[in-house]
């Protein structure tokens, strides 16, 4: 095992700046690690060794000339396969986009390239980001590096597993209902969902436009802040992008690393805990509350009564938006085209565009995508619109009012990130409702657009698997999640004698 892959992105950036290593060397070290363990983990759908090494060589040249493009110039990264990458396949984990190579870069990808981060490859995900386990990927599930028989969370399980397995120091995820934070929790890594509009959605294949948000997937809070400052900020190509400067995130993370929480008001959300949450997850959460109190925080209990309806609200709004978004996969301009067959199995002569569309969407979409498209079509249909979609939009207002009231009483809100640790692959794959419950605690933030982070929160006693603590802040106050997140991380490291991931079992790859 190369020592380089064990270091954080901030440490790698320092090593590059100090001339201790080169981007080519550390990019190669990560490509070697991928070659050694990804056969077991399956975090990647596409690996671009050649492209990454070329970008690394360019980064080394910039540094040699004394002109690095960013603090992370030369530090490699993995990108969730939902982001358009010019010249690299982008499948969203779906057969319908198999082999598609976008002609343009997403803004996030463009910013990564401009900042000099070599792109190692594209990471696995639930098809079109619909799921909490990556089992809905058309290309096979990703395995949790802590226990290969378990799920890595989802939809961004590939990005989280890549970072947890030291295949990449950094990754990009997207979070529509928890797809960055929940995989972070179950893999012992850090995931941040920025304020809605804080990171451009241009080139992010949309699941639900009003909920989707891209963000950092890392092993430390500081690394997330460094990456967030590179990908965040206004983008004229995204009309929902916030036209205001980002808060000072790296400064906030460095400030928080002292572990001092004096004067910080922390609200424990009554409704995000208790029934449906695994005892070991709750026990670790309670310990963290005590740690934070000892560190000077003023902990209060806050009630957000509408949060109990957030899951139902989400599963009306999301399918409605998704069914509309996915209508673009019509087999006409890009992606899969399947010609319909007659009952005897022969291709129909001269099929209509509509028949081709039906056959393509049946062949190209998996079960979960079909379920949600049909659900969304139902929720939006004329007879049911008021009862479902209209009602969900109103409850969304109430969820935001609950947040507003809660943030009167507390600077940040906390809860367990996910109700359970990683479950077994196959355990919930055909039980959609059980799968949906994984996002119980993460969904309210998406409905209201507020930022959130998941930080490793210790191992549950029952199964020895990682759990996460979620920290939420008001919209535009992303610096608070970094400040408090870094403090919690520092308190934990002091208590555990090292990062949680150091307790993960070694993956057995081919001998090196």
């Amino acid at each position, binding site marked *: 095992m190369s020592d380089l892959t064990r270091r954080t992105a901030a440490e790698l950036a320092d090593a590059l700046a100090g001339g201790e290593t080169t981007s080519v060397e550390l990019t190669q070290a990560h490509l070697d690690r991928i070659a050694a363990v990804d056969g077991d983990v399956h975090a990647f759908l596409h690996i671009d060794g050649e492209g990454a090494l070329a970008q690394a060589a360019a980064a080394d040249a910039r540094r040699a000339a004394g002109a690095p493009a960013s603090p992370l110039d030369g530090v490699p990264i993995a990108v969730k396969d939902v982001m358009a990458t010019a010249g690299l396949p982008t499948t969203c984990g779906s057969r319908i986009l198999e082999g598609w190579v976008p002609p343009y870069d997403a803004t996030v990808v463009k910013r990564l390239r401009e900042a000099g981060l070599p792109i190692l490859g594209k990471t696995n995900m639930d098809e079109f980001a619909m799921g909490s386990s990556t089992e809905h990927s058309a290309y096979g599930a990703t395995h949790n590096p802590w226990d290969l028989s378990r799920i890595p969370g989802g939809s961004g399980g590939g990005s989280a597993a890549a970072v947890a397995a030291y295949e990449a120091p950094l990754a990009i995820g997207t979070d529509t209902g928890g797809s960055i934070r929940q995989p972070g929790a179950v893999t012992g890594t850090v995931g941040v969902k920025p304020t809605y509009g804080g990171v451009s959605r241009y080139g992010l294949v949309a699941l639900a436009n009003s909920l989707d948000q891209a963000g950092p997937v890392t092993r430390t809070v500081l690394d997330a802040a460094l990456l967030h400052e590179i990908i965040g900020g206004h983008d004229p190509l995204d009309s929902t992008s916030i036209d205001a400067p980002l808060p000072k995130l790296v400064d906030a993370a460095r400030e928080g690393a002292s572990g001092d929480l004096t004067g910080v008001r922390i609200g424990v959300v009554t409704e995000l805990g208790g029934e449906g949450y695994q005892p070991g997850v709750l026990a670790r959460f309670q310990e963290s509350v005590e740690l934070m109190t000892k560190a000077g925080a003023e902990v209060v209990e806050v009630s957000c009564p509408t949060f109990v309806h957030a899951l139902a609200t989400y599963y009306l709004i999301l399918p409605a938006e998704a069914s509309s978004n996915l209508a673009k996969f019509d087999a006409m301009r890009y992606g899969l085209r399947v010609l319909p067959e007659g009952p005897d199995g022969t291709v129909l002569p001269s099929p209509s565009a509509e028949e081709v569309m039906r056959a393509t969407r049946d062949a190209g979409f998996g079960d979960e995508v079909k379920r949600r498209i049909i659900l969304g079509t139902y929720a939006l249909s004329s007879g049911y619109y008021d009862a479902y979609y209209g009602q*969900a939009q109103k409850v969304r207002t109430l969820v*935001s009012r609950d947040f507003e009231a809660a943030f009167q009483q507390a600077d940040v809100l906390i809860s367990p990130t996910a109700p359970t640790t990683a479950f077994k692959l196959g355990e919930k794959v055909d039980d*959609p409702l059980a799968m949906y419950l994984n996002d119980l605690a993460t969904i309210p933030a998406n409905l209201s657009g507020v930022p959130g982070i998941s930080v490793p929160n210790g191992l549950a006693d029952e199964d020895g698997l990682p759990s996460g603590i979620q920290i939420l802040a008001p919209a535009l106050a992303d610096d608070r999640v970094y400040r408090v997140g870094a403090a919690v991380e520092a308190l934990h490291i002091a208590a555990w004698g090292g990062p949680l991931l150091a307790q993960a079992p070694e993956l057995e790859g081919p001998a090196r």
Partner: protein
Amino acid sequence: MPEASVPDSFGITRDEVAHLANLARIDLDDAELDHLAPQLSVILESIASIQGVAGADVPPTSHALPLTNVFRDDVVVPGLTAEQALSGAPEQEQQRFSVPKILGEE
């Protein structure tokens, strides 16, 4: 589809699922309908709890940010070339997307 604004029952029948799949342009076969219809019923029953949570006076939220009409300057900016735009096309002809017939016979 029933016309009532508040359905009496939140379950969904196999025929309704077939109808919705048709509207969504997905060719579901019998086996898929048998599989998906009961699952969709269970999901709908669980999310039906949302009925009556918000009163008539609560305004709807469609979006987390209160933004309307974001414009850019009306100037020409670079776009994709025809070749780039067609690069993923299943079929193309004379710099155009080639598609199956859209209108019925004659």
